[in-house]
């Protein structure tokens, strides 16, 4: 293995700001600070922030079976371009990742693929059918770190209860897609003044808040660690906070798009903005942003959900749900929250590093001797316009096309090797 030096960057992790140093990496782990000596590769990190690579607990990599949208290679490379060193992939693929063999295959293929590390999630129900539980223990043994039917809410409360009981005993995290399927019905956007004006079928906030309440109650009842994915509304955060304060072992995720876009975006009738749960009102976005400050929200997950352009050019009723986000998440949130003075940088980093690690029960990522050399170098001064044509993801279309964003990953290192470099 090679020896790498990152020279002259400001080193920051969840334990604090270490100041400007040369950081040495060797054999896939952090060797130390300012050691000197010969190196095989060196990177000039002066003027940048050197910090642990981000963790994304929520990405749709579409592999196996939907490689036209994304595959392991493009998805893990896109994650690296977004500054991520670890990605939890969702199981709503074709076939569904509901079998230990599929998990093992993902793990094996990812090990041969450059980019972020893969920690796959497995399905909660066979075929995402919502009827029979998958073999949690065997899936865990094959490498699954999370159980989730994400993409499809688990309608059957009894099945969810049994899933929580099994997961609790095995120490697996369950991630929910908390929307009441009957209440959201065929809604394609947030229900409210905008959906009524546009004549688009609405999906009310209560579809989310009701299901969050159920899922939080089942977590409390069973002791399972339940991660509430992509909470999108003020009411949803209120319900989840109340359950959390009452001792339910739940954690809460928000996404970059729910923090930055509102349902007014749908007035363009552009299915790029069609996502589940839907983009909410400006008041919801403001509430979510405020909630980032306290301890209520545990992590930011990208819910990176790539689709082909042809799919996203279908009509508003037929186009699939999802936004491709993983490459722009940091720049977007740095620009709109940190550079705008609305959130301290340390808090944003926490929600991308220590926060998700704690959700999973993993050690907090640190720039410490012997820790895995998973590192992102951030140029907080760099301003670039988002150009979809140059995205690494196969989904070369984005709501932020042409938007100038500030603060970009310029180098991502995983296990001591550069997996992304921005010139």
């Amino acid at each position, binding site marked *: 293995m090679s020896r790498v030096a990152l020279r002259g960057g400001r080193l920051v992790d969840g334990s604090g700001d270490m100041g400007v140093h040369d950081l040495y990496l060797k054999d896939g782990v952090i060797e130390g600070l300012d050691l000197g000596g010969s190196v095989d590769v060196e990177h000039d990190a002066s003027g940048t922030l050197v910090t642990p690579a981000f963790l994304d607990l929520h990405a749709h990599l579409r592999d196996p079976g939907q490689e036209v949208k994304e595959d392991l290679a493009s998805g893990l490379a896109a994650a690296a371009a977004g500054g991520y060193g670890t990605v939890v992939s969702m199981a709503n693929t074709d076939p569904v990742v509901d079998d230990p063999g599929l998990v093992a295959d993902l793990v094996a293929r990812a090990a041969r693929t450059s980019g972020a590390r893969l920690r796959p999630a497995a399905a909660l129900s066979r075929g995402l059918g919502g009827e029979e539980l998958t073999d949690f223990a065997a899936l865990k043994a094959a490498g699954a770190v999370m159980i989730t039917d994400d993409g499809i809410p688990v309608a059957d409360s009894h099945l969810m209860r049994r899933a929580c009981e099994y997961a609790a005993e095995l120490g697996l995290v369950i991630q929910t897609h908390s929307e009441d399927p009957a209440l959201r019905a065929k809604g394609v956007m947030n229900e409210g003044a905008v959906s009524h004006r546009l*004549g688009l079928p609405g999906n009310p906030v209560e579809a989310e808040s009701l299901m969050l309440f159920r899922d939080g109650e089942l977590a409390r009842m069973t002791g399972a660690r339940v991660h509430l994915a992509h909470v999108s509304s003020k009411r949803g955060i209120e319900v989840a906070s109340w359950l959390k304060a009452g001792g339910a072992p739940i954690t809460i995720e928000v996404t970059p798009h729910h923090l930055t876009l509102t349902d007014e975006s749908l007035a363009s*009738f552009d299915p790029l903005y069609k996502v589940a749960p839907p983009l909410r009102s400006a008041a919801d976005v403001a509430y979510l942003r405020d909630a980032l400050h306290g301890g209520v929200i545990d992590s930011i997950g990208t819910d990176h959900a790539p689709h082909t352009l042809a799919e996203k050019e279908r*009509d508003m*009723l037929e186009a699939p749900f999802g936004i491709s986000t993983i490459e722009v998440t940091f720049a977007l949130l740095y620009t709109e929250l940190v550079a705008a003075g609305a959130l301290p940088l340390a808090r944003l980093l926490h929600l991308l590093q220590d926060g998700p690690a704690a959700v999973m029960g993993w050690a907090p990522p640190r720039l410490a001797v012997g820790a895995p050399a998973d590192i992102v170098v951030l140029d907080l001064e760099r301003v670039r316009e988002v150009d979809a044509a140059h995205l690494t993801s196969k989904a070369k279309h984005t709501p932020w096309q042409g938007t100038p964003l500030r603060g970009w990953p310029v180098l991502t290192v995983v296990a001591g090797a550069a997996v992304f470099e921005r010139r």
Partner: protein
Amino acid sequence: MSVTAIAGATDAAAARSLPQRPAAPARSGRRHLLDFTDWQVDELVALLDTAEVMAQVLTRTIKKVPALQGFTVASLFFEDSTRTRLSFERAARAQSADVMTFSAGGSSLKKGESMRDTLRTLDQLQADLYVVRHPAAGAPHQLARWTDAAVVNAGDGRHAHPTQALLDAYTFRAARRDTTGAALPGAEAFRGQRIAIVGDVAHSRVARSNVELFTSLGAEVVLCGPPTLVPREFLDRPGVHVTHRLEEAVEGAAAVMALRMQRERMAAGLLPSVTEYVTRYQVTSRVLRSAADGAVVMHPGPMNRDVEIESSLADGPASVIERQVANGVPVRMAVLYTLLVGRR
């Protein structure tokens, strides 16, 4: 030369020398009619005025002018609607435009061709204007982003049906008279008038477009129906009121429009029964007694007689329902003319 020259044109040469756009104050560069967002009152009145000229054309022995000769109008119907399509095609042919018809039923769309690929194909056939009907709200807006041709929305999902609203406004204005019996010019016919729209507002593109148009023209719109079909938060727009009591909606109204009640709404749990709907919301001659003097009864068609509207009322003296259908042609002529001649 003004748009009235169309009616007076006695030969093709005169008509071909029409101005680049109507002398009426339509804004140049208006490319599409998708909904009424951003349309100004003077532009809307100009469309109604142009439609009056077109109506004169249709009273002549030879009901055809050469105004749109050389233009190709393509009707692009992703959802069946024979009535609307025929009305548009009649409007195009009466101005000598060539007409192409695409309907999804007999097309490659069912074989998986995308809406955008369909458009690419038709663009190669050099259509100048697309008349689009689609089951999804916003589809005409998507198509308008992808083509250089003009796009007219002929109904998109629950969102908008702007030419239906224009013909409703045209019919309403034509029926209104001042105290001396004279016609009311411009937007005067609308100012301060109450228009009641009754029925399944939530699922109605006609209702949405009428709300936009009538309030822009200075009228007040009252939306009425059961709470499941007229959500209270519907349209927080000045000039719009919501009530769930029919008597309250109709009182003092200058027009009462009944919307088609689709039976599948009951299956969706939005209504307990037809009987209950009829009892509470059917527009009847009895209910109409509290409306303003000379109030007209409208319906965008097709009607469920004795469901949303009392059959005898639909056929009675207050009804302008047949005139609505007839007025569709001159109104659509005016829309095609305004958008296409503006592009020359």
